[in-house]
């Protein structure tokens, strides 16, 4: 019934082959990769400082905390959820560590506490969205506001120092020449990719977002899957906050909050559907790097940060538009 022949009959073989290629699940990611290479070429031509190993490493390192949050946010959005509070959780995590440190608490105990609080907020998000069936946009908008407000209350809006050598290593230490935050981000992406690709849980993530009603009728634990993902997102937010604190040697209550939109933009740019059921972490990683590269390249070219925002928005619209075009051609 769905196969209504077109007036022109069957399309010629080369059109069909192109269409088949576009229909592959990885086609979107490949398009994104091509897009990234074009950006790299442009910056390489325009700036002599761009294409060097230290610069490329610094792009990845600076994007790492955004990458952590986007990595955990991707399966959540695939499963049909959304976490707007993740960046606020990152801010709170830094505040918890720094206040604990100032009060004489062991810094690692502070970190553990921050991770627990972050996961706990994620658990609350999950319980409100799945237990009470509230809209995730509204729930996490609410917790975002509460959490960032609490951070300000706890600190009086002030920035607190976080100088402790072993802790600061998390932000600037290197393993075989590669900064720890970058390694942490890559490992996180790899772990989440492995979970999504190879475990039953990963299948449930795609099924839950692809059709929650059908999934429930099949006995798939939709609610438990989503709650676990909210907890993971909260955990990743706290981890990102700790990394930022270690990088900066200080914790400001609103240090990370402004990056929420970048996190969401990266997930969408990476090809994850806001309606759930579709997406990949490698797409998200590419998108995180693309946004980081744009920042870096435009800074090298002395473009003001105001114009950088304009550029990032335009790139997001362009990429999402192209992807929509791909989906249409494929059908």
């Amino acid at each position, binding site marked *: 019934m769905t196969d209504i022949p077109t007036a022109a009959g069957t399309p010629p073989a080369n059109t069909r082959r192109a269409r088949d290629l576009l229909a592959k699940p990885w086609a979107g990611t490949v398009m994104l990769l091509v897009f990234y290479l074009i950006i790299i070429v442009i910056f390489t031509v325009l700036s002599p400082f761009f294409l060097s190993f230290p610069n490329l490493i610094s792009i990845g390192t600076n994007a790492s905390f955004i990458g952590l949050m986007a990595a955990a946010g991707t399966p959540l959005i695939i499963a049909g959820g959304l976490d707007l509070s993740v960046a606020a959780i990152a801010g709170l995590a830094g505040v918890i560590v720094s206040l604990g440190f100032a009060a004489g608490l062991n810094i690692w105990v502070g970190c553990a506490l921050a991770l627990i609080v972050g996961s706990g907020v994620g658990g609350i998000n999950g319980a409100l969205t799945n237990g009470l069936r509230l809209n995730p946009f509204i729930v996490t908008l609410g917790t975002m506001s509460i959490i960032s407000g609490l951070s300000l209350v706890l600190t009086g809006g002030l920035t607190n120092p976080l100088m402790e050598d072993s802790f600061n290593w998390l932000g600037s230490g290197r393993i075989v020449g590669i900064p720890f935050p970058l390694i942490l981000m890559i490992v996180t992406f790899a772990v989440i990719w492995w979970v999504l690709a*190879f475990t039953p849980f990963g299948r449930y993530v795609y099924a839950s977002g692809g059709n929650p009603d*059908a999934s429930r*009728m099949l006995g798939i634990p939709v609610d438990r899957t989503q709650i676990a993902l909210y907890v993971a997102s909260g955990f990743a937010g706290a981890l990102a906050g700790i990394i930022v604190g270690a990088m900066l040697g200080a914790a400001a209550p609103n240090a990370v909050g402004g990056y929420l939109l970048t996190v969401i933009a990266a997930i969408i740019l990476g090809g994850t559907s806001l309606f759930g059921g579709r997406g990949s972490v490698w797409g998200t990683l590419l998108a995180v790097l693309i946004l980081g590269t744009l920042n870096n390249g435009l800074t090298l070219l002395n473009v003001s940060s105001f114009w950088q925002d304009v550029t990032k928005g335009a790139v997001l619209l362009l990429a999402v538009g192209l992807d929509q075009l791909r989906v249409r051609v494929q059908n």
Partner: protein
Amino acid sequence: MSDALLMEMTGIGKSFGGVPVLTDVDFGVERGKVVALLGANGAGKSTLMKILSGNYARDAGAICIDGQAVEIKSPADAIALGIRMLPQELSIFPDLTVAENIMLGALPTNGGPVRTLDWRRMEDEAGALLRRLGLDWLSPKTRMGTLSHHVQRIVEIARAMTGNARVLIMDEPTAALAEAEVQLLFSIIRRLVAEGIAVVYISHYLREVFAISDQVVVLRDGRNAGTFVTADTKVEDVLEAIVGNRVGDIYPPHAASDAPRGEMVKAKGLAVPGWLRGVDFSVRHGEITGVHGLVGSGVEMVGRALFGAVPKTTVEAIEIGGRPYRLRPPGAAVAAGMGLVAAERKREGIIPMLSLRENMSVAKLPLFTRGWTVDRRREQETVGSWIQRLTVRARGPEQAIGTLSGGNQQKVCLARWLLGELRILILEEPTRGVDVGARQEIYRQIRGLAEQGLGIIIISSDAEEVAGLADRTIVLAGGRITETFERPTDAAHLMSAASKSAAA
């Protein structure tokens, strides 16, 4: 037929993807008459009416209004010609007033550069329409959401009467209405008919059809199967025309009736508020148990209540395989050996963007899980062998299931449960939107599963299907069992059992 036909369709043909749905169908209605259009599910009633109301384009045939050939290319064309269709589902705006709901298609405005709503005229015109339908007591200023269901229905009729409505198509207008409300609806239909409006009345409730219609037109398999003057016709004749005599063609033989069989499921007092009022039934090993009833009779809840998918389900006692069973949510029901194929495949069956493989294995992933991960090779082997056994036609296991035909999707939805151990299989409307070839294959598989000793429940509002497949059948109306057939029976018996006590 007489020469006073207001609307006449002749030789109508329509096919989808090469499969004919309507072949050479004639249909017409006179001014001031009610014609009932009857037929089993899939007989082509709604396709015919969608052609008349401009939602589908016909492939062949002609449509005349007042003897003049007309082209109906869009719903707007149909409305301009005075053809109005009342959809099966309510489509109202609960937060707007009755007047706004009626006049939405043609809101009167004041003159002037900025066109603002002319509230006075809107309420006057809406009020006039309501009086025309005999609803003098209903104020046009009432908010729609505060009205009861059947009054909302009637306001919809008033909406359809705006403009120059001449042909009114009503699709199952009495579903979910109580007897008194049905009588109110009938009195309104009689008023419209007295004004010269022609009414096409689609319903499964034969009693209502005989109460309101002047003429009955029956479709079967997309062809005319009989035209009757209601007053000179017996119910049996109409039933025979609906069912025909082709039952048995595509169905495998029934189970031998003499073999003694143990009970797989024994439920007592299964109840769902608003749907089921205490239903007792049992399902035996090796048999197909049919559950039949009209839409809204509660038939749609029996299987999913047993499967634990309906909140607030209660049951007095239930045994599975001779042991007491407590109703539990779908995940645990699956682990206990149950499977359910849902009626609405798009909404509750498939996960459209996932592949055929992922759709087939997702409910039984523990089978393929080794340690932490899914054993992809074993999964592919198992899925591949089921694709072959059920002759699923697809480019391969990685094709997105949303792009398969309905029949092939349904085969996947069935195969899902066959991958692992299964004791009870519940099938809701197992062949809705499924072509005949796939239907036969699905029936064959179901019978094969019964022969392996499974307990099988077929829930269907299609009497012919239940008759062809079920070894025993319970018939529901109004949330209760009205009749139990311990042996295979025919569709006519099922239909009369389902429709005669529907309003009781």
